[in-house]
């Protein structure tokens, strides 16, 4: 084994070093590359340092390419018949040869991928290189990519060892790895990604090992190898589906969406704005009549709407319902670090919120170093041990001002001045939520915080001065979702607007038939005007054929198995799995039933075809049944596996009855005759009783 590892290491070290240099150069370029050269990307829209999209692009594709190439380079050059025979004939088991190759290959893969990544991590983590914080969780996306690249290495080994066409069964291990890549880059949870990568690596490793033991026939491989190989073919078929979906997405019919919403114009006029594919197509009044004024034409209206925080959060629901939640994604640095979107330029310092530490940190942009912290104790030096903000402590921001609503009071913080004030509330808490609103008039702009209390909304300017309190005039139990806006500039707000929308706790059908209300108030909270906003048509999306088809041809084992998994998870207390199951059996019940029917019918039909076909080409009864069961469980992917991965018998005409018979059977299944001996020509020279002569005696 040691000799084998040494040989593989020596033979392929040059490739690993070359890959390390190439990958390192690409990662450094991605790390220091900025989307807009010469400008600071203060919003960090594509992520922070080693979570930047460009960097992750390199780790995703680079690791996969390195894994794939190393695997192929280890096997293909040695696969020439005589060379491979010389390797296999050595007096060690094929399993040992495989293990030697794989262990050396993994070391080489680690050499090619890990040092460049560690260098990037060191640059991102050590002070003085970037004006951004570093948290350990930022390593996760790159680590997931390196793990996925490892799966590509196993895929390359399995692919190279498999005897088949490159455009056929041989491609399936790589397609399976491709399916994993789709999963890794689209899934939100790191631990789920790790589980998937481990399972796929295991399947490919065992499949490769079994192929090494027996390259020709599937049925001659150990049972674990057979199962792993079929799993690889199944996931390969899924990968093929992913590729087909991507192609369909690029060339197939586009998915259209249509949505209508209420807005208030900068002149205080309520508007009903309809968008198609996020492009405004109509602007009407509440009666559905279009405006003649040019500023309300679809192409112009966006510049004349009040910013009411409607895209980010609802406030004021007394039931504590928060419909919008930040969905954590392990690949998105916003999962770990929020960049505060201040809009004062040029800026010298940049604040970040560290999600897990629950504290803020400030970086001096020019010097790439941390200069201050903000945590539960207030402002602190950069090197101070952080004291996390309490978990229930939420915050909102306007420019470089923050508000921290507490249970009974709220703190207003000025980041540049490092000051904090806690003005009294106009009525006792609790605070149901905080919103921000913004208005621009000519060259002047103004932003305010709205704080939803029990009886009204307190409106503060960014420094914490109370501007007004807007009392509620609707049933807050049923219309508890509030949006707030205003018209004003400088330090003077003229009119305030409150939109009351049906509360999120009410079921979807009832909510869709309830009206909303809009109130215009003056600075004293006096209602100037009330509008009833009729219910809007629900958000509509045209059929997504890609998903429609994919859902209906999925594997019954996975479709029903997933529901079973969710059920078990719910029983064991997983809220996420319980919610998923409740959604499938609740609001999506009709779709779930329809998909079940499609999946079951298609599987049964394909299983029937499989059985008939298998028997027709003389599969044994037991093998035909086994494949039928496999197709029944795995649907189209199972059928592809049956056609490509089964030991499809070669048929030739029977010399006895002329019907087709398999070449590997000794007797014809139709007429029962054996194979005739080669005809004697009379030229045969046979001498069976010759005495063995000692070697070398004839020389």
């Amino acid at each position, binding site marked *: 084994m040691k000799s084998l590892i040494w040989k593989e290491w020596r*033979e392929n070290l040059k490739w690993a070093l070359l890959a390390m240099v190439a990958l390192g150069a690409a990662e450094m370029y991605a790390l220091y590359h900025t989307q807009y050269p010469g400008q600071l990307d203060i919003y960090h829209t594509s992520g922070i340092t080693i979570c930047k999209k460009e960097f992750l692009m390199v780790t995703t594709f680079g690791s996969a390419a390195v894994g794939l190439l190393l695997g192929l380079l280890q096997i293909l050059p040695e696969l020439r018949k005589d060379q491979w025979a010389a390797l296999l004939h050595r007096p060690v088991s094929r399993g040992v040869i495989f293990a030697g190759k794989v262990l050396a290959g993994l070391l080489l893969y680690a050499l090619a991928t890990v040092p460049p990544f560690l260098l990037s991590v060191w640059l991102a983590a050590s002070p003085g290189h970037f004006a951004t914080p570093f948290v350990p969780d930022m390593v996760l996306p790159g680590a997931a990519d390196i793990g996925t690249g490892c799966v590509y290495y196993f895929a390359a080994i399995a692919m190279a060892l498999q005897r088949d066409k490159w455009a056929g069964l041989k491609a399936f291990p790589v397609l399976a790895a491709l399916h994993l890549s789709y999963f890794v880059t689209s899934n939100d949870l790191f631990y789920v990604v790790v589980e998937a990568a481990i399972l796929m690596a295991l399947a490919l490793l065992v499949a490769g090992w079994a192929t090494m033991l027996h390259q020709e026939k599937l049925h001659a491989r150990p049972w674990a190898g057979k199962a792993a190989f079929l799993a690889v073919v199944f996931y390969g078929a899924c990968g093929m589906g992913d590729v087909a979906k991507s192609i369909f997405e690029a060339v197939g019919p586009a998915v259209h969406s249509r949505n209508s919403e209420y807005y208030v114009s900068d002149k205080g006029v309520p508007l009903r704005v309809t968008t198609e594919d996020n492009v405004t197509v109509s602007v009407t009044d509440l009666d559905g009549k279009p405006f003649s004024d040019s500023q309300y034409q679809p192409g112009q209206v966006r510049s004349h709407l009040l910013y009411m925080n409607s895209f980010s959060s609802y406030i004021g629901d007394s039931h504590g319902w928060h419909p919008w939640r930040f969905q954590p994604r392990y690949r998105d640095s916003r999962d770990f670090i929020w960049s505060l979107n201040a809009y004062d330029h040029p800026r010298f310092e940049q604040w970040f919120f560290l999600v897990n530490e629950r504290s803020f940190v400030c970086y001096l942009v020019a010097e790439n170093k941390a200069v201050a912290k903000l945590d539960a104790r207030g402002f602190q030096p950069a090197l101070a041990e952080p004291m996390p903000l309490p978990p229930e402590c939420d915050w909102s921001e306007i420019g470089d001002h923050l508000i921290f609503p507490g249970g009974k009071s709220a703190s207003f913080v000025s980041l540049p001045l490092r000051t904090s004030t806690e003005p009294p509330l106009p009525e006792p808490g609790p605070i149901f939520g905080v919103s921000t609103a913004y208005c621009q008039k000519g060259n002047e702009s103004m932003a305010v915080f709205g704080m939803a209390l029990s009886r009204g909304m307190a409106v503060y300017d960014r420094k914490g001065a109370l501007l007004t309190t807007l009392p509620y005039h609707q049933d807050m139990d049923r219309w508890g979702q509030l949006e707030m806006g205003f018209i004003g500039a400088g330090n003077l707000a003229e009119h305030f607007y409150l939109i009351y929308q049906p509360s999120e706790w009410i079921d979807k059908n009832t909510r869709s038939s309830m009206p909303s209300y809009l109130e215009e108030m003056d600075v004293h909270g006096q209602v100037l005007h009330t509008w009833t906003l009729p219910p809007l048509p629900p958000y509509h999306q045209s059929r997504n054929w890609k998903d429609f088809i994919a859902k209906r041809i999925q594997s019954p084992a996975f479709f029903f198995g997933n529901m079973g998994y969710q059920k078990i998870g719910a029983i064991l207390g997983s809220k996420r799995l319980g919610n998923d199951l409740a959604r499938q059996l609740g609001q999506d019940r009709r779709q779930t039933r329809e998909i079940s029917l499609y999946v079951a019918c298609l599987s049964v039909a394909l299983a029937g075809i499989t059985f008939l076909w298998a028997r027709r080409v003389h599969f044994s009864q037991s093998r035909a049944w086994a494949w039928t069961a496999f197709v029944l469980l795995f649907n189209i992917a199972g059928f592809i596996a049956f056609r490509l991965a089964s030991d499809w018998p070669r048929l030739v005409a029977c010399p006895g009855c002329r019907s087709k018979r398999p070449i590997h059977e000794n007797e014809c299944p139709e007429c029962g005759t054996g194979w005739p001996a080669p005809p004697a020509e009379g030229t045969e020279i046979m001498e069976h009783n010759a005495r063995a002569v000692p070697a070398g005696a004839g020389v």
Partner: protein
Amino acid sequence: MNPAPVIEIDHLTKYYGKREIIRDLSLKVPPGSIYGFLGRNGMGKTTTIRILLGLEDPTRGSSTVFGEDSRKLSPETRARIGYLPEGHHVYGWMTVRECGRFQASFFPKWNQDIFETVITHFRLTDKMKTGHLSRGQRAGLCLALTLAPEPELLVLDDPALGLDPVARRSLLQSMLYVTRRPDRTILFSSHLLSDVERVADRIVVLDGGVLRADCTVETFRERLRHYVLKFRDTPPPTPEMPGLLESFRTDNEIALTVANPDAETEASLAGLHPESVNPVEMTLEDAFVSYVGERGEKSFFIKEQTRK
């Protein structure tokens, strides 16, 4: 009682796709014998060897080596089999010494003297990079690597393929020098009988995947006859006769090669009323070429054809 055969092949058949490469081959190789495995290129020699060593599966039939099923040869049994595949592959980045060490690490037995004797015979030194060796030297190194573990069975797949006559002679000499032990069995394939006749005491001929001969070299030579029949005029058509391998017609001669000739054959020839019938001594090489060459009648300078 005959000792158990080292190699036993039983009704072996192999297809590649729908093409039959080996058909119903049965063979027993007793211990201590040197078998020459002969046939033209593509007749199934290498495939048979690969099946024997478990590197490929038979379509039907079976084979055993040292009584063990070829498909499940244990590492211990493999250690008893020395195999020199055609192509003489060595890892080009290794030195001769590294090649030896690498190979030695797999085998329970390693005779360094044999290794050094053979590499010295081929004028190789320890520090030479194997990637820079000539074809003959590479073949010598491969032979040294195959012989040093002192295998009981030596399987050589066309070991002299692509070598010049000097290197070929050198390779065969060293092989014979090192393997002159009565208990060592050798199966060695070639498409050149001249290689085999120096070494083998028994030959097996495969033609179109079918076993056509399994005999000693002497028997093979004895059982093939070449006759030259002279005629006054255009010779008559060659009659159908059992064992006829080829006939070659010229203006007034027929040259016939016949396998297993007997009195009936000679009577058939006499029935053609030739002016003379001359049995001609064939070299073993000529006999082999006739045996595995194209069957049937060939002609050259026939008067009727020339007139046409």
